[in-house]
């Protein structure tokens, strides 16, 4: 479930990588802008109204499957911003350089943490990672420069 190129050019937007019908619906309650459409059946796949989504990332912290990401291709001239859920220690800090991994666990480049959001008590921490635009659609995991994630590929 990927928004089209036009939508990506308009600013931050959530990407739901939830492609299998499973009984789960916390994302429907997570969005205060009504961008996640109400479920008819708990097994439904989530439906996102891309026009209503402002990429705030609240759903990212609420998804039990850690399957939601936010991409902002308008972050800067040459960099994109990726918001991803992170449930590991040590939690990277603002300013840290991190190694970036794709969905298969292959290291594809580096990024920099620009913010760490830990607002809700039950919410998963959300990392804001600044990275090259061409990496934003592929990177789904980060690790500190030293230690962790040393098993590439």
């Amino acid at each position, binding site marked *: 479930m990927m928004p089209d190129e036009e939508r990506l050019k308009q600013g931050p937007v959530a990407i739901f990588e939830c492609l299998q019908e499973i009984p789960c619906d916390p994302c429907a*309650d997570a969005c205060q802008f009504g961008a996640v459409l109400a479920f008819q059946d*708990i*097994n439904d796949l989530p439906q996102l109204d891309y026009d209503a989504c402002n990429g705030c990332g609240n759903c990212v912290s609420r998804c*039990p*499957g850690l399957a939601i990401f936010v991409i902002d291709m308008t972050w800067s001239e040459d960099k994109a911003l990726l918001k991803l859920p992170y*449930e590991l220690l040590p939690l990277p800090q603002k300013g840290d350089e991190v190694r970036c*991994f794709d*969905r*298969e666990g292959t290291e594809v480049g580096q990024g920099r943490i620009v913010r760490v959001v830990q607002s809700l008590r*039950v919410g998963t921490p959300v990392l804001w990672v600044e990275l090259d635009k061409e990496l934003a659609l592929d990177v789904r995991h980060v690790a500190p420069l030293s230690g962790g994630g040393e098993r590439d590929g």
Partner: protein
Amino acid sequence: MKQVDIAVVGAGPAGLHAALMGAERGLDVLVIDNAGQAGGQLVKQTHKFFGSREQRAGTRGIHIADELTKKLSTYTKARLWLSSTVLSYYPADQTLMIEDDAESIRLIQAQRLIIATGASEKLLPFPGNDLPGVYGAGAVQTLMNVHGVKPGRKVLMVGAGNIGLIVSYQLLQSDVEVVAVVEAAPHIGGYAVHASKIRRMGVPIYTSHSVKAARGEQVLERAVIWQLDEQWNGIDSTQFELPCDVLCLAVGLSPLTELLWQAGCRMVFVPELGGHVPWHNGRGATSVPEVFVAGDAGGVEEASSAMATGALAGLSAVESLGQCPDYAEATGAWSRELDALRAGPAGSKIRKGLQSLQL
């Protein structure tokens, strides 16, 4: 002899829900569990639950266990005996024999009995499966998530169902390396989102692969893995070794049904439900009028379903004592929850199992 309205065996998600249904309606309820802590397997579940808000989706299992136990403790007529083992059930006079936490034997007569004993882990036969380091997934979770001890340095996970995938992720969260997940079936059985979490952290998942042998002198040092053909036979030419000090078995669960057999319940073999299960009517009633079943003991499912089947069994037991004026309304709500949980493709196996149970 002490008498209670309802005895519940097992203080997991199903048993606690069943007990709450009785306690909320003013009955004497006794919950017995052989563990030292209530919550059953919930106490090991650090991940956020799926399901809907009613089933506490987004809440971690460890917090659900606390919440349910606290709620039960607010009812003065509800009691919880921990570190207590039910040794047997005598259907003729509806009596349970229990070894309590002081290792004394106690007899309890219960008007209604709800069996919520859960399930035990299945084993996998291969040479060396008795080596120290070959552990059940439940044991790995207990060691790591309850006692804060790393099970080892390099773990090979066997089974890519939800338990295998979730425990792999929990190991990574505890900073333990997961060298691989092997799965005998040609497809990952667990949810894709759980698999994605460990894939992006670099853990390979080998489908159509199994363990040929575990090797080591005194303890596990390495595992021999091989690919399976379409008849699930190992292919010699494909075998390779993976160094590991833990081999974690997550190859399915079987309902724990000893007390149901003892009670004389009609038992049915249903592979989709995990093996022998008591016949039940979908609301916990078994073929023995005083005996009800809840949770995995009636068919292996997820914890969210166990909470619902527990509530239904509790309500049915209360109703059978003539004490449940809101039976239709309350069971209606829980049944709808349960049907919704089982409605999608992920619930097809359990639906098929429940269907064949009724044949």
